[in-house]
């Protein structure tokens, strides 16, 4: 009996369950792999370094048909869902972050997602987080035991000389009994347990942000992965937890890039020829903050409100509920570093080039004002400033803002169209929809029919079947001829719109039933996996007479 089920994902990191004969193991975890996979004991003389030429590999690679199945970029092999794979000797690649990431992306692309990835001889408390982030699931105690022989005391923040054991840096069983080997193994187990918890909570990236600072190579790996297509595939569209942008690397997260891309490429703004740029607020959604109440009052709906912010760049008022606009938190010191400036300017230029306004008014101060001016210069439009004092919320400043807009017509708000264009890449052209409810909990109705509701916890629009009937294309998952009982499992998925990412609202279509729900996997994973929940089902509608 063997089997692999991915139970939770957070980006490229996974939490799941491995079954090997009678043993059931949750991962990420470390174990004595030679006991779990006896074939490992009979693989002497099989060494192939991860970077070897194809000819050598083809001559000397030995396959015994047993688990874990060795992977090598020059030795394609047919891996099944549920297999455990091993990347032999890959611990030697850790000092070469670029190769490590590139080769791993290649291997991952040619292997079903619901496989368990065993990286031998590498795991230490200090690198466990980055290894799991890279996509590894299973580890051994080889590296920690080796560290023990080297009289190294291992912690997630690095290695210390053994003597620190007496200083109270840890108080595990190993430390209490003076057993360094036990301490080092426990330290690894604990770290992996924390990582597993973080993955399930959706806060793994925030954890990694701290953990990766131990060694420059770890940061390099994180940065390479951030740029990869794989991360784009696996990064969820929403989380229900805060998005903490606590380092310069946060601005390069997929969530931020995706927000800017969707803003520029998908989002359809309301019909307005005046835009006002205003600063963000600590409170989210912005419009519940005191400062934004004042800004909005002064603007009086006579312009399209655009919030300038780091790291997201630009958040139109009607997207303020969208993840991570309502979920992020960022250290504020008043200084915007030049990478922030560059990325944000870039987003502004792209946005305003795509969506020109007759007037752009910036109710901004400090660095934000400079960035807006830069963007205006680059995109080639005029910008008006309305901050009169050194506080944007001073009556004089608000007065100036209000006066700048005198005579401008009211903009027709269209919460739903903006959010739907952003989320589904679809231009909703349904008249007579009414938005009701107490912000941010909103429902969209026509008469007594409910079409959409906002889901502020996720920062998404939730369509009903009626809602989906208005969104004519995209975000469909196709299943076989069955009526789903409970959630949609991956083997039941025949096809899925490639744009689907974990967390997306999707419409599941089969011959016997339609289903609304939320994707748990990306389209790629749904299609290539044979186990696990693909779509968490909200409502099922049987299709009669078919």
């Amino acid at each position, binding site marked *: 009996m063997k089997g692999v089920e991915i139970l939770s994902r957070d980006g490229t990191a996974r939490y799941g369950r491995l079954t090997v004969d009678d043993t059931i193991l949750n991962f990420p975890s470390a174990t004595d792999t030679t006991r779990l996979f006896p074939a490992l004991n009979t693989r002497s003389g099989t*060494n192939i370094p991860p970077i070897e030429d194809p000819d050598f590999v083809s001559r000397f690679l030995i396959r015994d048909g047993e688990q874990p199945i060795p992977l090598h970029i020059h030795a394609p092999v047919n891996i099944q869902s549920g297999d455990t794979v091993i990347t032999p*000797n890959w611990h030697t690649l850790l000092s070469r972050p670029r190769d490590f990431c590139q080769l791993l992306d290649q291997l991952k692309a040619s292997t079903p997602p619901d496989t368990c990835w065993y990286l031998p*001889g590498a795991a230490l408390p200090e690198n466990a987080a980055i290894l799991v982030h890279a996509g590894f699931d299973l580890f051994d105690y080889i590296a920690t035991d080796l560290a023990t022989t080297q009289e190294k005391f291992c912690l997630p923040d690095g290695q210390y000389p053994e003597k620190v054991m007496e200083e109270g840096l840890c108080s595990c069983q190993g430390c209490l009994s003076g057993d360094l080997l036990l301490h080092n193994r426990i330290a690894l187990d604990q770290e992996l347990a924390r990582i597993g918890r973080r993955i399930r909570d959706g806060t793994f990236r925030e954890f990694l942000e701290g953990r990766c600072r131990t060694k420059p190579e770890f940061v390099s790996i994180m940065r390479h992965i951030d740029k990869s297509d794989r991360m784009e595939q696996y990064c969820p569209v929403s989380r229900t937890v805060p998005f903490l942008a606590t380092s310069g690397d946060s601005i390069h997260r997929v969530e931020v890039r995706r927000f800017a891309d969707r803003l520029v490429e998908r989002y359809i703004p309301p019909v307005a020829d005046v835009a006002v740029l205003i600063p963000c607020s600590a409170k989210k959604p912005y419009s519940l903050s005191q400062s934004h109440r004042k800004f909005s009052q002064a603007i009086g709906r006579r312009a399209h409100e655009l919030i300038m912010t780091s790291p997201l760049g630009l958040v139109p008022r009607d997207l303020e509920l969208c993840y991570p606009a309502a979920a992020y938190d960022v250290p504020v010191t008043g200084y915007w570093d030049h990478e922030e400036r560059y990325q944000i300017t870039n987003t502004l230029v792209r946005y305003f080039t795509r969506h020109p306004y007759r007037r752009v008014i910036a109710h901004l101060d400090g660095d934000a004002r400079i960035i807006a001016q830069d963007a205006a210069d680059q995109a080639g439009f005029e910008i008006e400033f309305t901050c009169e004092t050194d506080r944007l919320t001073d009556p004089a400043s608000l007065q100036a803002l209000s006066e700048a807009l005198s005579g401008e017509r009211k903009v027709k708000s269209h919460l739903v169209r903006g959010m739907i264009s952003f989320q589904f890449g679809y231009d909703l052209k349904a008249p007579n929809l009414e938005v009701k409810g107490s912000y941010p909990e909103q429902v969209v109705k026509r008469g007594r029919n409910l079409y959409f509701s906002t889901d502020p916890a996720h920062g998404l629009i939730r369509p009903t079947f009626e809602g989906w009937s208005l969104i004519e294309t995209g975000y469909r998952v196709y299943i076989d001829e069955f009526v789903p009982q409970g959630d949609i499992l991956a083997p039941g998925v025949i096809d899925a719109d490639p744009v689907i990412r974990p967390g997306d609202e999707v419409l599941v279509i089969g011959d016997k039933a339609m289903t609304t729900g939320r994707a748990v996997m990306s389209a790629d994973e749904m299609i290539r996996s044979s186990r696990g929940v693909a779509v968490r089902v909200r409502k099922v509608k049987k299709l009669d007479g078919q």
Partner: protein
Amino acid sequence: MKPIKNPEEPLAIWSGQDYIAGEIHPSVTAIIRSGGCSWNRCKICQYRHERFSGIKGDELTRLMYAQIQRLKEQIEKINPHVVKVYTSGSFFDPLEVPKEIQDHLIELVKGKTLIVESRCEYIDAEQISRYVSHIKEGGEAGNIYVAIGLETTSDKIREKCIDKGLQYSDYLKTSEVIHKAGGKVKTYLLHKPPYLTEREAYDDMITSIQNIMPSTDLISMNPCTVQRNTHLETLWKRQAYRPPYLWSVASILAKSPAHVTCDPIGGGQARGPHNCGSCDGMILDAIKDYNLNADQELMLSVMEMDCTCKNEWEYVMSQERSWSMPLTR
């Protein structure tokens, strides 16, 4: 290609002492630049860069002759019992060492012990017996030792890890040929070529020594060193190779049922056989002594010493696996 400096000088020449057949003899060793090894594929070999590239025929003969002259001067000066002439290839390959040079050298070492190295395919019974009788003309003590780079008795390892183009059976045959021709055999073993765990390499040496004892008169084990511009260096730079621990070297010598000489080139350095850096010198000294006195007690006592790195070595010996190696640098 950079022009070769001093083409008429040997690459190296030095005098010293050698332990052969229970006795210590004065020796002269010369590394001669030759036409180059015809095989020239071994993953661990750098010597292909120390050949006369593109020089053949009379010019090659002239340059090698000049080098032999330097050797001749040394022999005349020191009158050693043992003369070792290494070409980093095959002495008996006429394309590498022209026949005239071979013959000329034999003249110089009559009555002495000559050690030359060669791949098996160039070793010819008739030629050997001719050389033996030539040498013995200068005295019965004289003889020729043909050094063969067997490296390991495992054909699998030799093929995968070294790419030597040699079978163990070839070696056995050749050894018989040499002995029948009245010559003697020196066998080189290579300790820890790439792709082996510390333990696999160790076991390979123990087995190889046992295997070859009936077929060889001298055994020399070379702990592998990372030489420049070799495939091994590429592997090493990619963290895929670690030279053997000196603990392993010492342990093999301590356990060996025959006297095995050993010159750990680059010992104690990152590219050579090394331990942690603090015990390396002591072990290297012991090996040097053991080469000359064959006192295996010395090596046994080395293995009873302790160092902070010994635990690490023991761990690596027991836990390093083909799929998780090398564990250390």
